[in-house]
């Protein structure tokens, strides 16, 4: 590219192209208008959303499924506030995003101008970093810095707030001299960590001498592209693995050493093996309260090895015995190297292994089949969906009971096939996230598993899917209730159901789906389930919504009640008499 004078709007789009951006999600408006003109001539595909929150979650779904940073662009004021939820969601789940917001002209900032809001102030606490551009000449450098910050170290969302005069070619303030390779100016940002080899040695020593070790694997493994390295580590040590909600797929569920998901709705074996372990090797995991339960009672006999790229995570919740600050993949590879050099005799762990398989036999995930004529069991629907879709299907979920059941009942054998809102727990995440994932993987099948409460929050993005030709499939587990809240009221509020009933018959999801250009299917009985899924799988030219009418009284089990330690895990009624 040549050196020349151009305006800030063109420079922004050119800088995005130089970063390799292929697609962006957005919705134009007054302050960002000048940037929407050069988009017409750009190689970047712009996907026009129906709500700015949708743009943010689509960018997240794209980023989580591809590993590339997701890009969204919206205007100032209400558009900026609408995208705060995805920013916060991406911040908590360490998803690399670059979000561009329009802003009123520099001279109008602070005057309560039309559609003005303090975007950088509002988003300070929910972004890894944000920028307010005050000089058009800074545009290329700031874009480069934004992508660098979003994608290195612990990834996260970065916001660029762009005043209109900086990007408006009719305003002299927008002129800049284009430079191809602006130099970044980030003296305080040093994401590369030198790995402490003595920590690796201590960790390997602890691993070798432990009797009841468990690898506690978090989303950091996926961020570090460390799934392969992890598999090697697991196989040479023969140690069991739990994969947190953020790490589902980081280690294959069908592997004999995989124990599945721990935590509040983790399976009995995953929860209990951590609780009884003498060593937890936390790899890119952050001891979230949904995993630990009551912290004081969490894994009381376990020594802790904590590997994380973010020094602020180490010791935040639980003081580790060995702390290793660094990239998970590099740390695991160093561990593997060291283990290979040693001929150390491993501890005899046969007793621990048989304890684990005993739990697996006595406490599998289970549910009762539905009675004839009554509503579907959500677990049954998910088992069918799991068995009737390709193994590399990408599944995006909303938040609530359906999310927990999907994580429990799906068989995740590939990394980056599970897209969900873990930290923030954003209802309505699944449909836009599935659309973003599909944009990044047009040849893969993408299913959104959604609840009826969630669906009503973001379903309008199915219009986007239709118009932009991004065919996804939606399995709507429709129990007419805000199911997870209902479950808590059932268990902890004397079955007093307060404001959780939505409706049995409105909206008409089939008709709603059809009105948005999708195929709508309603399924009431178990026999219809496989047929409906098969039909949906065959439809490739548009999105499909299947309204599965599921049972509202169904609970997610097991469950560790909030505030209790993980030994208080509640199993399904049919397993209550089992020996713990």
């Amino acid at each position, binding site marked *: 590219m040549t050196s020349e004078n151009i305006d800030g709007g063109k420079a922004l789009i050119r800088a995005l192209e130089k970063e390799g951006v292929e697609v962006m999600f957005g919705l134009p408006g007054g302050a960002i208008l000048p940037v929407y003109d050069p988009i017409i001539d750009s190689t970047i595909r712009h996907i026009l959303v129906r709500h700015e929150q949708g743009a943010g979650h689509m960018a997240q779904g794209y980023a989580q499924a591809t590993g590339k940073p997701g890009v969204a662009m919206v205007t100032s004021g209400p558009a900026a506030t609408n995208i705060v939820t995805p920013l916060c969601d991406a911040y908590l789940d360490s998803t690399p995003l670059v979000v561009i917001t329009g802003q009123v002209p520099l001279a109008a900032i602070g005057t309560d101008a039309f559609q003005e809001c303090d975007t950088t102030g509002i988003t*300070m606490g929910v972004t890894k970093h944000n920028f307010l551009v005050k000089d058009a000449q800074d545009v290329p450098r700031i874009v480069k810095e934004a992508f660098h910050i979003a994608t290195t170290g612990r990834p996260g969302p970065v916001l660029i707030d762009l005043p209109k005069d900086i990007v408006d070619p009719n305003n002299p303030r927008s002129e800049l001299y284009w430079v191809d390779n602006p130099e970044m100016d980030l003296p305080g940002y040093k994401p590369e960590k030198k790995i402490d080899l003595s920590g690796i040695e201590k960790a390997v020593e602890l691993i070798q001498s432990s009797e009841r070790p468990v690898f506690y694997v978090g989303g950091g493994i996926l961020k570090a592209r460390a799934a392969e390295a992890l598999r090697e580590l697991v196989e040479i040590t023969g140690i069991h693995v739990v994969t947190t909600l953020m790490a589902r797929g980081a280690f294959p569920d069908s592997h004999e050493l995989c124990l599945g998901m721990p935590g509040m709705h983790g399976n009995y074996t995953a929860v209990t093996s951590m609780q009884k372990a003498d060593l937890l090797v936390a790899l890119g995991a952050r001891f979230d309260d949904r995993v630990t339960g009551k912290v004081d009672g969490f894994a009381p006999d376990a020594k802790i090895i904590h590997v994380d790229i973010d020094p*602020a995570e180490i*010791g935040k919740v639980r003081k580790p015995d060995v702390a290793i600050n660094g990239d998970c993949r590099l740390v695991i590879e160093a561990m593997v190297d060291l283990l290979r050099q040693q001929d150390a005799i491993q501890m005899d762990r046969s007793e621990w292994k048989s304890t684990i398989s005993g739990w697996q036999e006595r406490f599998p995930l289970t549910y009762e089949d539905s009675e004839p004529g009554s509503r579907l069991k959500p677990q049954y629907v998910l088992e069918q969906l799991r068995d009737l879709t390709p193994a590399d299907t990408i599944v995006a979920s909303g938040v609530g009971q359906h999310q927990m059941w999907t994580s429990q009942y799906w068989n995740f054998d590939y990394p980056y096939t599970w897209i969900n809102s873990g930290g923030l727990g954003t209802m309505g995440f699944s449909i836009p996230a599935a659309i973003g994932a599909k944009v990044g993987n047009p040849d893969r099948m993408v299913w959104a598993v959604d609840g009826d409460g969630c669906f009503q929050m973001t379903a309008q993005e199915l219009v986007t899917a239709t118009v932009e030709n991004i065919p996804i499939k939606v399995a709507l587990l429709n129990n007419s209730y805000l199911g997870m809240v209902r479950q808590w009221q059932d268990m902890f509020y004397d079955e007093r159901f307060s404001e959780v009933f939505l409706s049995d018959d409105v909206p008409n999801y089939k008709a709603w789906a059809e009105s948005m250009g999708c195929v709508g299917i309603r399924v009431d009985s178990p026999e219809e389930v496989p047929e409906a899924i098969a039909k949906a799988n065959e439809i490739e030219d548009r999105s499909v919504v299947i309204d599965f009418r599921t049972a509202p009284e169904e609970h997610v089990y097991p469950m560790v009640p909030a505030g209790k330690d993980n030994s208080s895990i509640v199993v399904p009624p049919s397993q209550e008499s089992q020996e713990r």
Partner: protein
Amino acid sequence: MKKTQANYTILVITVENKFGVLARVSGLFSRRGVNIKSLAVAPTDKAEFSRITVDLDIELESVSLDQIINQLDKLINVVEIRALDPAESVERELMIVTVEAEASQRDELVDHLDKVGGKVLNIGTESMMLSLVETSSVIDDFESFLSDYGIVELQRTGRVALDSL
């Protein structure tokens, strides 16, 4: 990251000298529910950096101190951060104060001011303006001595500190 021995904690933060950086730093304290006792900010010998001295009037547990240091260090504009050990640093604070002082009271007042090394900045008909550069504890004592006279207006800068030689 040293654990402080005194009943206060001094953090010294080198930041990029840009708009909004102070808000990021102070915002992190407020989001973590930590009260800042005093804050001093000024450019360093390099114009592109500012030095922030934060005085927390509590002795943080070493775990929470490490935590807040690590979180501040994650701010992109923070170039360097560390806790100063009060036992191994030299600290000073500046106070300027206007105090009620009739002509008859001034000798005693100035006598005391001389003992602590303060200066008279201004003399009015019924009041005097004084300044004192000292450690915060000496300033605390002098301030309570002045309160018997009647303090009209007072400003303290909060601690600034450097490592001992």
